């Protein structure tokens, strides 16, 4: 018998407190709640479940009773949910202890946490750099070993890209696999909750807990939940890996390309077969994504109106004035930009030209994947075309920021599961991520491939300096 749950949670809280001035991974630390939960677990006769006593951080757009949730926005400053998200219920029932919420881009709109209204999180490998986004705080918290498990949400790469930039594992499950009840909606045909962890094995264990049908989310699927951990046999002989080489252009950082090629060599040595696949429409993914995601966001964010919760502008003269000024004062620049674009592409006269057209090209992108999966079991890509860039570097250039998601949006548009895991480092010592995508509902093959690769390498074992350099 090792130490008590309380001792483990106290140690996590101490690590968080020490790291916070430099790293800013957390938005709210729920120390009292965590310790009270730890004491309940310690008093029980038997372990609560497979995650008994594991400290857990949740992205600041997933609600839990007694914890403020801001979604990185001033418009929700002070908001406290009256209910628990489905994933929170399931993880707590399995024994995990929530220690707090992690920084994210406002309403998950961003790839760097630069768009968090409370300031960005920092990358533990280099504090001047972004941890990625939008689930950047979650990735930083796991990379710096503050917590073993963090939840993120992934609309266009927001779990996988920060996992890649921070050198940890991040899983975006199949659309419909995990209930989104209690996730603040950004783009409802794309959003999915998933884990960030140090190993594929732990990600599989968390996924097993949070997956499964939930009647409170009408997009939650009636699919059986496989035993994800049991699927990690280490045997990937005859797994067919498809590589869309035409997408890996000279724009991709040289160190990233080298790490990706080396990873394919490892996969071959494990008995996997690597072959080329074509995804002819994938290069339109970013543009399609920004049309669809902003359209859906403009509708989802209509609820932030200064009436039922959140910020209300002072001295308003009418109800319309209340809406318009509360939203002006409460939303940051990127959120306003996306609401404006989404409103425009849904407006009369432009709907067919932009939104409907994007939905049609989305069909073509999904068909490309379906065709590829007729001949391969997983598709491999770099997660991000570059390693962590500097905080603030892309703030004034939205399109440059959007291009960070070039390899990740496809899985969201097609509803596929995806994983990012460490596969090397750049010459500057920054982590590089490898991505595997699989058929809908085939997380077992994807996780098995990732786990086998992880066993054959040791990239995930390398840790950033403690305390982080510059702290």
């Amino acid at each position, binding site marked *: 018998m090792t130490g008590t749950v309380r001792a483990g949670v106290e140690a996590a809280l101490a690590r968080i407190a020490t790291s916070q001035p430099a790293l800013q991974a957390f938005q709210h630390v729920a120390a009292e709640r965590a310790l009270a939960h730890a004491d309940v677990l310690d008093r029980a006769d038997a372990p609560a479940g497979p995650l008994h006593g594991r400290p857990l951080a949740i992205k600041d757009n997933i609600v839990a009773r007694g914890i403020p949730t801001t979604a990185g926005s001033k418009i929700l400053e002070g908001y406290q949910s009256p209910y628990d998200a489905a994933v929170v219920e399931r993880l707590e029932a399995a024994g995990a202890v929530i220690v707090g919420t992690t920084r994210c881009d406002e309403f998950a709109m961003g790839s760097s946490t630069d768009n968090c209204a409370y300031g960005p999180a920092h990358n533990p490998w280099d504090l001047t750099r972004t941890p990625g986004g939008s689930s950047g705080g979650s990735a930083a918290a796991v990379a710096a070993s503050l917590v073993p498990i963090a939840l993120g949400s992934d609309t266009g790469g927001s779990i996988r890209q920060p996992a890649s930039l921070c050198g940890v594992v991040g899983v975006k499950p199949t659309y419909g696999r995990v209930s989104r009840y209690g996730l603040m909606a950004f783009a409802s045909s794309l959003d999915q909750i998933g884990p960030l962890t140090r190993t594929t094995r732990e990600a599989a264990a968390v996924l097993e807990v949070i997956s499964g049908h939930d009647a409170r989310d009408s997009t939650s699927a009636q699919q059986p939940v496989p035993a994800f951990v049991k699927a990690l046999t280490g045997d990937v002989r005859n797994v067919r890996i498809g590589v869309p080489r035409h997408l890996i252009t000279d724009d991709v950082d040289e160190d990233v390309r080298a790490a990706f090629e080396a990873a394919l060599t490892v996969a071959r040595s494990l008995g996997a077969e690597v072959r080329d696949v074509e995804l002819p429409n994938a290069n339109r993914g970013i543009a399609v994504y920004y049309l669809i995601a902003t359209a859906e966001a403009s509708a989802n964010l209509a609820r932030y109106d200064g009436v039922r*919760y959140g910020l209300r502008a002072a001295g*308003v003269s009418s109800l319309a004035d209340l809406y318009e000024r509360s939203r002006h004062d409460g939303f940051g620049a990127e959120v306003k930009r996306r609401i404006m674009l989404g409103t425009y592409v849904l*407006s009369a006269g432009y709907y067919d030209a932009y939104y409907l057209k*994007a939905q049609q*090209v989305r069909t073509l992108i999904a068909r490309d994947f379906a065709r590829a999966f007729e001949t391969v079991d997983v598709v491999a890509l770099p997660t991000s075309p570059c390693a962590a860039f500097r905080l603030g570097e892309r703030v004034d250039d939205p399109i440059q920021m959007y291009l960070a998601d070039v390899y990740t949006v496809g899985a969201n548009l097609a509803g596929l599961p995806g994983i990012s895991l460490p596969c090397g480092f750049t010459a500057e010592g920054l982590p590089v991520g490898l991505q595997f995508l699989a058929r809908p509902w085939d997380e077992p093959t994807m996780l098995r491939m990732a786990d086998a690769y992880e066993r054959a390498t040791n990239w995930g074992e390398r840790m950033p300096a403690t305390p982080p350099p510059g702290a």
Partner: protein
Amino acid sequence: MASTLEPNDVDRIATLARLTLTPDERLQFARQLNDVLRFVEQVRQVDTTGIAATSHPLPAEPAWREDIPRPSLSNADALANAPDANREAGLFRVPKVIG
């Protein structure tokens, strides 16, 4: 041909989106939205004749359930985060709508 937004188009969109904008934001958004519209122009060039639109990534049956009342948020919980409310009466409060 890409659409080009003028600052007065930005005003129209802002009204639809229920946002007031400062003069600086108005000019900045006009420029940045035009950049994004030029970027997404590539989507409009794709031949999509006869291609169905995807509104939902995976085929799913409608999520039916029996129409049976079940517990929901209490009135107090629903009002707990309101910036202004008459909690005794159980109402959100907003500026006068009818004169």
